[in-house]
């Protein structure tokens, strides 16, 4: 990854924010520590100075100025190097005792510079730049007493904390940057993977997918969702492609036939009757083409699944009953017999129009491919809590090897090539079943074909309704009485 890209990235901005927030926190924390430590040390200092001052003042009051001066001398002698500083001077400003040079008397607290070495009695060797906290007090006879203590410890503590502050902030920021960058590089790499996949797909490699790691984190979820979306798009694209392929392959034949017919008519037709006949046949051909076209589009739309949005409770029993009733006379006119038995009252979540068409297609499939005398049996039963629709006939059946293929668009058995039909009926059955989450199986009915459509169990009532067996008995065509 190029550094410039990194600097522009969202992760980098995040890292900077993190560093800023962490740095500020550390600074704030140390500032509080500084304040507490320094004020505590200062308080200690004040206490010590005040204690000394009180003791010396007591001595002065009770025992006189000489005893006080002696006490100071004793203390100064003891301290080497001096931590405490003392000054006792008379009203005229002359030093009586102490290791601090005479000064203009000033009562109260003050921070003062430490006098240079040798300024007082005893070895005074203050560290350079050190200061001292002192308190002065005027004594009753005009003397002035000052006690001070080196602020060395406070200053050291201040320095230590300020040093820690600087180092702490530096380390925090550095760590934040390093950690953030590490994190960002990880994220950026995965985003880069997604980008790479997208570019590759845009370039035409439609089968590419974003790699997943199985970690289940957000990035993995994103990758999984993107892949699912790509899969869905691919299914839709393939369906679209199949439709266009189908149209290209299977509409070309009838269109060429139509063209030839029109060409022949132009060259050979003589009478208006000739033309009328050609026009009629051409219209029929065009209608058939349009119908095929509509069926193809319908299948494609069903496969796309948009109809699922308008699903509602459909009485499968009503659908099977109605469709059987409608087709019984058609079968009868064909010399066949249609028997319907509805053994359960099942509700399915579905599209009534499509379920009607699916059932009609199954019945028409049997009616059209069975010879006269055949028996077509439609049965709706509950199995394992789910409705199952069976359409069985004792006609020619479908060879086992061909059973999966008949669901393809335009696939027709050799035996039925001569009969009219688009070869889309079972493809639509399959599409409708898929849309409803149902399975379709074709099997041998010994002899004949058996189609079994297994629906999913639906929450609605699957009452084992009184086994109604409305046999749609072939009604003899008779004159009205």
């Amino acid at each position, binding site marked *: 990854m190029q550094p410039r890209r990194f600097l522009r990235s969202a992760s980098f901005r995040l890292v900077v924010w993190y560093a800023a927030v962490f740095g500020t926190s550390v600074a704030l924390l140390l500032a509080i520590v500084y304040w507490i430590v320094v004020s505590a040390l200062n308080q200690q200092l004040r206490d010590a100075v005040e204690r000394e001052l009180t003791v010396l003042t007591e001595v002065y009051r009770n025992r006189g100025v000489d005893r006080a001066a002696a006490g100071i001398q004793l203390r100064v002698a003891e301290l080497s190097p001096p931590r405490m500083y003392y000054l006792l001077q008379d009203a005229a400003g002359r030093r009586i005792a102490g290791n601090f040079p005479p000064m203009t008397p000033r009562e109260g607290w003050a921070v003062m510079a430490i006098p240079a070495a040798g300024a007082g009695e005893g070895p005074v060797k203050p560290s350079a730049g050190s200061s001292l906290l002192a308190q002065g007090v005027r004594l009753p006879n005009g003397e002035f007493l000052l006690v001070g203590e080196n602020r060395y410890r406070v200053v050291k503590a201040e320095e230590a904390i300020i040093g820690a502050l600087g180092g702490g902030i530096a380390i925090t920021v550095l760590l934040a940057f390093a950690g953030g960058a590490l994190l960002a590089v990880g994220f950026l790499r995965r985003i880069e993977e997604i980008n790479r996949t997208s570019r590759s797909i845009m370039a035409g490699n439609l089968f590419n997918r974003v790699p997943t790691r199985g970690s289940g984190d957000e990035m993995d979820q994103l990758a999984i969702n993107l892949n699912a979306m790509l899969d869905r798009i691919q299914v839709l694209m393939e369906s679209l492609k199949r439709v266009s392929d189908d149209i290209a392959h299977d509409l070309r034949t009838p269109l060429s036939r139509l063209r030839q017919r029109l060409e022949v008519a132009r060259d050979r037709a003589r009478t208006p009757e000739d033309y009328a006949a050609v026009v009629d046949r051409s219209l029929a051909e065009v209608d058939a083409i*349009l*119908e095929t*076209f*509509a069926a193809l*589009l*319908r299948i494609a*739309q*069903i496969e796309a699944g*948009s*109809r699922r949005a*308008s699903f509602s409770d459909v009485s499968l029993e009503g659908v099977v009953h*109605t469709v059987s*009733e*409608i*087709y019984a*006379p*058609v079968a009868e*006119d064909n010399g066949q017999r249609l028997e319907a038995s509805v053994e359960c009252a099942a509700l399915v979540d579905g599209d*009534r*129009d499509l379920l*009607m*068409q699916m059932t*009609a297609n199954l019945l*028409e499939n049997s*009616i*059209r491919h069975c010879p006269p005398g055949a028996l077509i049996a439609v049965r709706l039963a509950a199995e394992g809590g789910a409705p199952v629709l069976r359409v069985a006939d004792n006609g020619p059946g479908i060879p086992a090897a061909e059973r999966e293929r008949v669901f393809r668009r335009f696939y027709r058995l050799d035996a039925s090539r001569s009969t*009219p*039909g*688009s070869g889309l*009926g079972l493809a639509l059955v399959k599409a409708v079943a898929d849309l409803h989450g149902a399975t379709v199986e074709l099997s041998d009915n010994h002899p004949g074909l058996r189609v079994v459509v297994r629906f999913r169990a639906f929450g609605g009532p699957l009452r084992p309704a009184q086994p109604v067996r409305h046999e749609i008995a072939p*009604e003899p*065509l008779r*004159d*009205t*009485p």
Partner: protein
Amino acid sequence: MKILLIEDDADTSSFVANGLREHGHVVDQSADGRDGLFLASSEGYDVMVIDRMLPRVDGLAIVKTVRGAGVRVPVLLLTTLGGVNDRVEGLEAGADDYLIKPFAFAELLARVNALARRPPIAEGESVLRVGDLELNRLKRTVTRSGKRIEVQPQEFRLLEYLMHHAGQVVTRTMLLENVWEFHFDPRTSVVETHISRLRAKIDRGFDRPLLHTVRGSGYCLSATA
């Protein structure tokens, strides 16, 4: 009859308009949704034929607007091939019937006639009569010249629909959609089979046939034809 045709495709528009005029109707044409909406809400038409897809204002929106304004003129919506949800959307918007393009002119004519002459109160009538044929909706019986005719449930529905539209041409598709709720074209002779059975029951043995086949269009139940 005064008919408003809102259709943006010039060929379709003139095909429909000329056909309707040949059959004695007065046709106003509009090729644009907004002008069409203006006409639809202002003039008194008997039937409106509106394309689903129009420039500027969509056909569905016109139907909704016009219905919202209280115009009750019957509307036939023209939809494109394969619009799966068009039918439901169209009927929900307030259209009375729909027709998928491309269509035969006879189909459109039959539907326009059916819409225009829709008897407003027939829904509630319990007895329908055409000539000496009588259908009782409450008792679910059919008689001709007082003689009882036994019909199957599907035949009853078919006859009921035909009697509702007595004197009008009803097409195969109208029967499929309205009698059997088939919104697809069956590949077997469903309509022909049921019609011939019904005809056998109501016409056979009587001097005057009532159920007529109109060549190239459909069927017509009429006592006078």
